[in-house]
């Protein structure tokens, strides 16, 4: 039994969350004290960027001395650090990509940045949580902030509706997750993942009740990562939420949710993998099919990207199903590449959509290449990565995932997954064709040049996509080492 009093090592390992919370609170306090009423607060934006950068530095610094913190409640390891840095990076990218949008809607204020930082703090807790209750609290900090972000445009009907649906279905999922946690606590007498793992490996736990509680937790997690059959909320939420928020929601919270999903099901429930793998198999396949085939029929680009995000959750589910170190590493790599791509793609959407998000049809992207070549170019890079064309991050992501699936002997799932990605190519290519070959639409002709911050966001996301596509080995090596979860 460790001492009750935390040591300095505990605080260093918790430093990213502390930084995010302090800066977030500061942003919240400065919000009523600043501003000229024009809906533009660059000083708060830079404070948020500084806070996120500092948090990222703290997360990397904490990895210099990995280990458990606060009596094993948190565990700073390669896996946790990977996801902490990933979600903080997603947040940084979101801030750059959101600024044009927020200024245009006269909504740039401290609350947006404060909520973003709080949400990321919750996701960092999720990434390093080693205890079911801490995991739950992290998830809720992240989710509650996200609910408000989804409804950030108070005067917008779609944004309201998105927030309501996200809130109701998100809380519903939380209820399931928590009930599962309660049963695990009752069956094993602990909420610590390592203790649960040891208790379950030793046997003697009622298998039916154990399966029930694992199923309850699966429902909760599947909702959060939008895996079928619990994906229904995603299209409405991503379509209605402000575009930069959709970008963030489909990258940060999703990556963090997969982090806890992987950690819980490979450590605590690792010994019963043969029992949950078939369920995951079906869920992965269904998620891919539902996402890709529904995306084919969409004319609204945000809704299309939402279905595409469901499909990509399906690919990651394939990696989770393989239940191996290779699979976990592949999932990590995939989530990283997908996060940058998706934030970038939604950033271009938010740019073309213009004030009030009027232009979100696929036809509105017609002729984008002729008028705004940079926007069209980065969008092409993002979409080729989503298809999985070589030299982009998406190619290696898919490659590693299906390799892990084959290693685990899941030939059918691999074949069906590859067929799915072939179907997916159609709806991405359609947008690229429209951008390059059609006459410029009214929406595109009216576009004003993007600000330097937004352009930086695009280029950074595109550069990360290409860098991971051309030199994947560095990140993959780190992921492979970090994927050994205990």
């Amino acid at each position, binding site marked *: 039994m460790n001492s009750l009093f935390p040591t300095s090592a505990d605080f260093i390992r918790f430093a990213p969350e502390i930084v995010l919370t302090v800066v977030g609170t500061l942003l919240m306090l400065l919000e009523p004290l600043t501003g000229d009423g024009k809906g533009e607060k660059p000083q708060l934006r830079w404070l948020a960027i500084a806070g996120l950068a500092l948090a990222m530095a703290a997360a990397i610094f904490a990895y210099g001395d990995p280990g458990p913190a606060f009596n094993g409640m948190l565990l700073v390891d390669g896996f946790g650090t990977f996801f902490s840095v990933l979600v903080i990076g997603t947040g940084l990218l979101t801030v750059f990509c959101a600024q044009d949008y927020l200024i245009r809607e006269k909504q740039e204020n401290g609350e947006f940045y404060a909520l973003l930082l709080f949400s990321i703090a919750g996701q960092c807790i999720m990434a390093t949580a080693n205890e079911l209750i801490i995991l739950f609290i992290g998830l*809720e900090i992240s989710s509650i902030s996200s609910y408000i972000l989804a409804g950030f445009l108070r005067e917008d009907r779609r944004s309201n509706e998105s927030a309501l649906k996200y809130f109701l279905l998100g809380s519903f999922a939380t209820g399931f997750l928590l009930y599962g946690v309660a049963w695990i606590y009752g069956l094993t007498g602990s909420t610590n993942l390592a203790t649960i793992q040891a208790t379950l490996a030793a046997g003697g736990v009622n298998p039916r009740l154990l399966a029930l509680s694992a199923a309850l937790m699966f429902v909760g997690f599947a909702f959060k990562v939008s895996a079928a059959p619990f994906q229904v909320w995603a299209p409405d939420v991503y379509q209605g939420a402000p575009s930069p928020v959709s970008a963030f929601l489909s990258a940060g919270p999703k990556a963090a949710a997969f982090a806890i999903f992987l950690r819980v099901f490979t450590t605590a429930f690792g010994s019963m993998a043969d029992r949950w793998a078939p369920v995951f198999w079906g869920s992965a396949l269904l998620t891919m099919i539902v996402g890709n085939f529904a995306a084919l029929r969409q004319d609204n680009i945000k809704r299309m990207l939402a279905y595409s995000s469901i499909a990509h959750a399906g690919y990651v589910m394939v990696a989770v199903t393989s239940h191996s170190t290779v699979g976990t590493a592949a999932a990590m790599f995939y989530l990283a590449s997908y996060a940058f791509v998706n934030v970038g793609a939604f950033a271009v959407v938010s740019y073309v959509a213009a004030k009030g998000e009027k232009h979100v049809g696929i036809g509105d992207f017609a002729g984008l290449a002729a008028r705004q070549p940079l926007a069209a170019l980065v969008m092409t890079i993002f979409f080729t990565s989503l298809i999985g064309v070589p030299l982009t991050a998406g190619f290696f992501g898919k490659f590693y995932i299906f390799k892990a699936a084959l290693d685990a002997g899941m030939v059918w799932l691999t074949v069906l997954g590859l067929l799915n990605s072939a179907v997916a190519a159609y709806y991405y290519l359609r947008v690229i064709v429209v951008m390059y070959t059609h006459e410029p639409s009214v929406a595109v002709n009216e576009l004003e040049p993007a600000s330097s911050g937004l352009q930086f966001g695009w280029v950074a996301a595109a550069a990360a996509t290409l860098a991971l596509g051309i030199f994947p080995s560095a990140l993959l090596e780190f992921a492979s080492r970090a994927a050994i979860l205990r």
Partner: protein
Amino acid sequence: MMLPNAVPVSWYLILSAILFSMGVAGFLIRRNIITVFMCIELMLNAVNLSFVAFSYELKKIDGQLFTFFVMVVAAAEAAVGLAIILTVFRHRMSLEIDDVSSLKN
């Protein structure tokens, strides 16, 4: 106070399961947003009951502490949720969940 023949813990767990199921059923059946929201709260409170029952059974205090966290999270969720419901109401003048369906393709 420990009575020799107190109500067995399984009764509490069964009650909790019933409450949780009522919450789930209500969430799926009910059409009024506030009622749906109350069903979610019912689910969370059912979980709290389970935590306390398990805590008693295991003779461990931490289960009771978890209920504090669940309560606080539920309160935060309630505040945010009611605020969201209010903004939805301001736009639609209705609390029927079927009226909130402008996002379709």
